[in-house]
């Protein structure tokens, strides 16, 4: 195996519920602390204890943060999945396993190296408490790895110190376990391995955080006071993060009074109802859920759209349909969210691709929801939400004011003349609203999901209904102007081919762009950050012969939305898809694009032949 620095993949195979998660995190975080770009991904079952779980860590000095295929080093501590794990190591790679038990002959491959470390045996000898034995077995392999790939032991020890601050005996036990692993490697193997780490300090200022924490924190900064939610993987930790930061920063330390209310609802329908009721009454409220929850919330989302009540929903997407693969990632809720509910509806979607964007877009979603008086859905996914990602640090400007939208107060109501709740007075399609309790005799109105006129009076007059539906389209056009614009990767087009992507396909798409270039295929790129699409998206499509639409679902839903919303030729939009539940890889993107272009060329060739 050729030498390589800071460019490899380690995968850990564990049994869930055995404390491996924190050991694996320790490993990834220590690499992060060495200033080397690192991407850890949890691959876990829908189960609490006893089933196989994997943790994959990609190290990439070039800063490619997407997933890549090909495992250089497998750390196998799960006999259940060992056969599968041996197979997944790439030729010339390494397989570390717990050699307390002898490796079955059938698992010996000629083309990989074996590193047997008797983790359980060493742990049993060193520690007497059964629980400790179990947990510290994991730390032993971290120690072994440190020696094998030059992971700085000082960084690991510092992290252990931070994690167990004030618990000296635990810190000491961890140090012992680390040393056991290191000493074993020293005594038994050649080290370091051909691939290894080297401190780079490339990550100055960056943070390592998951998207759900970022969304929860974004909601705190965005001024959400009410959260209603129902537990569902992979969104639950959004609620947990919101609660954590609210407890910390919104609770009066003396009286215990709270400037927030969190309700675990009886189901997703109720959660959305609470969000709508709160927003209607002038608080900023939100929910977090996943696809099945959005399905249940459909009726309420339509109500909020039609009655024009702000609402924020964070959809941490997972593989569907139905219960699907609840612990696997996908981007399968785009159509569901964009056109949620019966009747003619369209909803604003925000599409974050990093934790920083999760933070910013969640905070911004409250401004957009109140400005546009409509539901805003922040579309993240399991990969972004539950895995740690390297991110730019979060930023906030203390001068920033919340945009509470068009709301009339008591004094303004005195001067506006007749108040028309659904009257578009200034042409942006957004009428003024009032909060309940504002004025004793002015500004009260009846909110309803039935048709009404400009003054909120019930009507079945077709003309009034149509005026209202048309005004909602004017509002939609306003939305296009104020949602985040797409990011263009080039000032001027360089190629007749473009790639278009969003959300968690971003890192792999950026890497694929470089890989294609290595094969002399130049592509322009655009990353969309919101729905509805701005003018720049249409312009990008118009000015390219082919646009590869990269997304993580079977039905190319984003491509469909582009066909629906923009006057584009569907034949120009080529789907590049990944929907096996694992995050999309750069290789998959590169291969699909390359094959398509080769095929097209061949077809052209044959066509010209036949024409001749």
């Amino acid at each position, binding site marked *: 195996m050729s030498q390589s620095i800071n460019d490899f993949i380690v995968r850990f195979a564990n049994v869930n519920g055995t404390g491996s998660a924190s050991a694996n995190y320790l490993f990834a975080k220590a690499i992060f602390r060495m200033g080397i770009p690192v991407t850890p991904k949890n691959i876990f079952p829908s189960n609490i204890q006893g089933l196989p779980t994997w943790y994959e860590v990609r190290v990439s000095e070039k800063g490619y943060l997407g997933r890549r295929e090909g495992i250089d080093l497998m750390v196998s501590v799960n006999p259940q999945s060992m056969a599968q794990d041996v197979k997944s190591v790439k030729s010339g790679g390494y397989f570390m396993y717990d050699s307390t038990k002898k490796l079955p002959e059938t698992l010996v491959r000629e083309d990989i190296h074996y590193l047997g470390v008797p983790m359980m045996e060493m742990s049993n000898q060193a520690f007497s408490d059964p629980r400790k034995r179990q947990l510290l077995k994991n730390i032993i392999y971290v120690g072994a790895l440190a020696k094998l790939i030059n992971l700085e032991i000082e960084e690991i020890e510092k992290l252990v110190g931070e994690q167990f601050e004030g618990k000296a005996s635990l810190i000491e036990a961890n140090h012992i376990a680390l040393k056991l692993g290191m000493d074993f490697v020293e005594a038994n193997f050649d080290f370091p391995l051909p691939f290894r780490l080297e401190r780079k300090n490339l990550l100055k200022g960056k*943070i390592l955080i998951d998207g759900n924490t970022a969304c929860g924190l974004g909601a705190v900064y965005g*001024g959400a006071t009410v959260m*209603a939610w129902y537990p569902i993987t992979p969104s639950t930790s959004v609620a947990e993060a919101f609660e954590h930061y609210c407890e910390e920063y919104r609770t009066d330390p003396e009286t215990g009074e709270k400037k927030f209310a969190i309700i675990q609802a009886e189901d997703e329908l109720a959660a959305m109802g609470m969000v*709508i009721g*709160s927003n209607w009454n002038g608080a900023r409220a939100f929910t977090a859920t996943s696809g099945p929850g959005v399905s249940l919330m459909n009726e309420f989302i339509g109500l909020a759209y039609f009655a024009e009540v702000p609402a924020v929903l964070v959809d941490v997407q997972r593989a569907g349909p139905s219960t699907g693969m609840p612990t696997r990632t996908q981007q399968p809720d785009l159509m569901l969210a964009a056109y949620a509910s019966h009747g003619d509806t369209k909803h604003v979607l925000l599409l974050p691709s990093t934790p920083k964007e999760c933070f910013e877009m969640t905070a911004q979603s409250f401004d957009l929801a109140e400005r546009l008086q409509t539901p805003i859905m922040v579309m993240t996914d399991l990969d972004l939400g539950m895995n740690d990602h390297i991110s730019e640090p979060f930023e906030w400007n203390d001068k920033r004011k919340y945009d509470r939208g068009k709301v009339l107060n008591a004094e303004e109501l005195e001067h506006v003349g007749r108040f028309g709740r659904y009257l578009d007075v200034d042409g942006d399609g957004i009428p003024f609203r009032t909060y309940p309790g504002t004025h*004793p005799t002015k500004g*009260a109105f009846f909110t309803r999901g039935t048709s009404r006129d400009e003054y909120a009076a019930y009507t079945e007059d077709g003309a009034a209904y149509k005026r209202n539906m048309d005004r909602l389209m004017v509002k939609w056009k306003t939305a296009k102007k104020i949602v985040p614009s797409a990011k263009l990767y080039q000032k001027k087009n360089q190629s007749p081919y473009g790639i278009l992507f969003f959300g968690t396909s971003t890192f792999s798409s950026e890497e694929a762009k470089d890989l294609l270039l290595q094969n002399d295929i130049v592509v322009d790129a655009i990353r969309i950050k919101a729905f509805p699409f701005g003018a720049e998206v249409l312009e990008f499509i118009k000015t390219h012969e082919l646009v590869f639409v990269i997304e993580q679902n079977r039905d190319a839903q984003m491509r469909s939305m582009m066909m629906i919303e923009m006057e584009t030729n569907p034949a120009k939009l080529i789907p590049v898809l990944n929907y096996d539940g694992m995050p999309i890889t750069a290789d998959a993107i590169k291969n699909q694009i390359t094959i398509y272009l080769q095929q097209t060329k061949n077809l052209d060739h044959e066509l010209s032949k036949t024409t001749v």
Partner: protein
Amino acid sequence: MSYLKPQFKHPKLPKNKIGYTIKEYEGPLSTLCAGCGHDSISAAIVQACFEMSVEPHKVAKISGIGCSSKTPTYFLGNSHGFNSVHGRMPSVATGASMSNKDMVYFGVSGDGDSASIGMGQFVHVIRRNLNMVYIVMNNGCYGLTKGQDSATADQGSKSKAGSVNPFQAIDLASLAIELGAPFVAQSFSGDKQQLVPIIKAAMHHKGFAFINVISPCVTFNNNAGSTKSYDYVRQHIEATSTLDFVPEMPIITTKYDQGKSTKVALHDGSIIQLNKLATDWDPEDRVSVVNALQQARLKNEILTGLLYVNTEWNDLHGTLKTCKTPLNKLTEKDLCPGEEILEGINRNFR
């Protein structure tokens, strides 16, 4: 379509303590069928709010879908209303209440809305003890879709079309008590004398107040054979008590026979005075109330009055320890931890 009422106001209309006449509490003309029990309940709500001298705009009225849920249009025209989706009024009311604890919340629902499609939300709003008045206008049928049986239709009850309901009825008042609702009353739309003080007491009660009002459907469920018809209800009604609601502590009326009367003090010092008609019934004893309801059911009677009251339980705001200022009045300064703290949070993730 609802119609505006004439604006004419008699100059000598009496005013309440805050200077409003009853007109300020009314809404547009109802479009429900003439003689609908629901309109009488709306009138009782108007009367109760007027007598309680509550600022009309400090009340919010929230409903689901159905004939009953239409009624908030027809009362309290100066209050914000929200006609939400079928069976989901409790969640919308919960959200609204979380935003602003300083308002009175009227939830209006029907038997289809609460006992069928919205049963889950009905159960859970009780479990959380949301501070609201929850009125079910109970007519035993789906009026707006032309008279199908609802889940509160009594077994054996005969519909206008002649079919007999084979299923057991869900008794919402018993269920509410079983679930721990701290204020449960039952009344009849035709009995304004009883209903108005019940609504007043419910408004003052801090916590969930449930009022199940039998309200005959004149069009689809007022035939012989229906147990929710005017005639049937009038013949089978039995009051647990007469009651009076006294908003201020000192004015304790003594017109009742002391031996039979019970006083219940509410959180704000107001008093509910109950003059007991039923023997062996104690409004503060759940077991006794459940027993009385079951006894009445055996006799095919409808027990009315304030059935149960408990002022001890924390309402949802109390449980969640929300601050005194309504959440919808908080600003950036109260809510956003700011740049410096964010920098600290960033540091924790390095």
